[in-house]
């Protein structure tokens, strides 16, 4: 693994907490690595586990799912669905040989701009640690 390796991380954020938290990090000018790109959904409950697989297939080296703290979901229980789904998914990924350092789940509220920075940093750092990911990659589909 070369020292130059910069991982590519895809993040799925819920609109109400984590996306707002990431916005707050911006408003507060908190600096973090640019390796992570965000896809906004309304709720973590919307995130189909296939999205995660798909991100890996398309070439992501790491994936992050982030939403409201348990109990604070804007849609009452969407993040509970996500928590169950992705806890299982994490084990499944481990089972098929994907290092758990590539897949992260976090709870960042709309007021936690500083926590968002920490989450991005640790996600990117861990993806960097395990290096490029090619196990799932397939030929690029033409959308």
């Amino acid at each position: 693994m070369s020292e130059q390796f910069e991982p590519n991380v895809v993040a799925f954020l819920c609109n109400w907490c984590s996306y707002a938290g990431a916005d707050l990090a911006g408003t507060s000018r908190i600096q973090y690595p640019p390796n992570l790109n965000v896809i906004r959904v309304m709720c973590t409950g919307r995130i189909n586990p296939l999205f995660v697989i798909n991100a890996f297939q398309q070439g992501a080296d790491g994936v992050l799912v982030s939403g409201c703290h348990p109990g604070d979901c804007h849609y009452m229980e969407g993040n509970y669905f996500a928590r169950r789904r992705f806890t299982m998914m994490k084990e499944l990924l481990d089972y098929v040989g994907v290092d758990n350092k590539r897949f992260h789940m976090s709870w960042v509220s709309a007021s936690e701009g500083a926590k968002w920075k920490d989450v991005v940093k640790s996600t990117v750092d861990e993806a960097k640690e395990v290096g490029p990911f090619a196990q799932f990659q397939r030929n690029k589909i033409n959308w």
Partner: protein
Amino acid sequence: MNNKPKIGVYVCHCGMNIAKTVDVEAVAEFASHLPYVKVARNYSYMCSDPGQLLIKEDIKNEGLTRVVVASCSPRMHELTFRKTVAAAGLNPYYLEMANIREQCSWVHENREEATAKAKKLVYAAVAKVRLLEPLQEKEVEVEPSALIVGGGIAGIQAALDIAAAGFKVYMVEKTPSVGGKMSQLDKTFPTLDCSACILTPKMVDVASHPNIDLMTYSQVEDISGYVGNFDVKVRKKARYVDMNKCTGCGACAEACRLTGRIPSEFNEGLGKRAAIYLPFPQAVPAKYTIDPERCLMLTRGKCGKGPKCMEACAAGAINFEQQDEVVEFKVGTVIIATGYELFDASKKPEYGYSDYPNVITGLELERLVAASGPTGGNIVIGEGENATVPKEVAFISCVGSRDASVGNEYCSRVCCMYSAKLAHLVTEKLPDSNVRIYYMDVRAFGKGYEEFYDRVRREGVRYIRGNPSEIFKRGDKLVVKAEDTLMGKPLEDEVDMVVLATGLEPRKDAREIIDILKLSQSADGFYLEAHPKLAPVDTATDGVYLAGCAQGPKDIPDTVAQAKGAASSALILLSSGKVKVQAQISNINEATCRGCGYCVEICPYGAIDLVEVNRMGNMVQVARVNEALCKGCGACAAGCFSGSAQQRSFKDQQILPQIAVLGAMK
């Protein structure tokens, strides 16, 4: 006309906010080569009139069918640009935003990296926008009434404003009387208005206004529904007193066996009440309530030969058989004005609040000073014959505020001024006393506050800059150990009374409302507003507004101003009578749905039902979304086995291209 989309990409400089770290010209140039992109421009302020005009003209002249705006967060300006797009005759949902400010230019310093990331984000937006579908916004009627939770000055002001505009108001207050914390105050800074004199007329107005349905000693159990149509369930706790019969004469309280034996909440435990009580003489409504945790009849089922209050009550209002009553009603909008709690001074053991009776809180002194208080306005230490008048009085400010060790980093905003006010009242009532205030900083920021602070100092109150480390007893004196940080001198100050200026904290039962309404909390634990500057009374939930200290520490003028703001926001909704509902909701393809019912179980709103349809002559069950109930979370879409359930604007086939771009583009 062909069906190929024509996309316009608009990259905003946001003055220098974006352009400083992102090469906006390079991003626009990059975008112009992306598939289906017809025009790509950059402009200094896309949200300005000329910026929006640029989009409108391109839609007309270039025949654009999709628009991507790369600028700030969609949480900021998505609505603005939707309106722009709609004004040019395009469906407002043919818009996608790339957040290259909050999540790019503001968080990265390296221009090259930030530009590369901006390109990726724009590419992902272009990939998605092509596949967006036109959506219709539906309007629903707004129920012409408001719910106000909390009957302090914030709730009272909001209720009066909404009621005056001609709409029905339901006010729910947890305690037996409205008035809140303000009713406990003696005088208010900086004008020294008597608190009761300015508050009680408003309390009476709330109770007597024909448009206000006041429910005291009641609690909100549940709120469901959505903006304009909330279903509210309120539990009216049993008072064991018939509200219609009680005349408020007080004979029952005099007769009660426990008279003078239960600490009065209103007097901060300094005075005593009976088990049947009126919280304070000016309470509204002036109806007695039996404390179910203290009353002998209710706790032990027996009160001597028979409850004395019942004997004493000439009106026959007492009814031990009374049950809680649950009422349900509909409202269009909700204002949360639940207020605050005071910091528990025993959490700072070094100040000895739990150990020494002559260490008291500001609110306790407030009750001592008040003519209606337990001592009739005499400032004394101790009770009865042992009561002594203090000569040396010390105030300590910032107790439980600006103190990370107790988890409160914020300034409570009122303690400096209420200390100054109380110091003034002490010097006024006890001209021989010496008053000093230990402070960290004096924050006298409001109208007339600095002048009042000057006045108090002229009256002889000494301000000593230093945060006392300890209070201990020496003989019958209290010793305040501190360092005068301006003189650089340690000192031990012998005093008779210490007043702790305790700060404001979020209510301990704040979670109840959070669980009911899905509100967020800011880091300090108060309810989070939608935007700290531009939407300070709104919440993330449409139709729910905040007023007063529930949102953060505030003095009375700010609270009243915010309450009026919340009332005006609620009135916009109520008087327009209509509200647009979420268009980005779920939809189920009935042709592919296999009717397993999994989404029905998942949906947090019960918005999906299984219905029978005729599919080529066979009656089959399929799931169908009730569009009025769906909130657009998309949980069904992630759970659906056949991909039949999809969330509009967040369909699988709309998100997958974003993933493809962000995953593949290094």
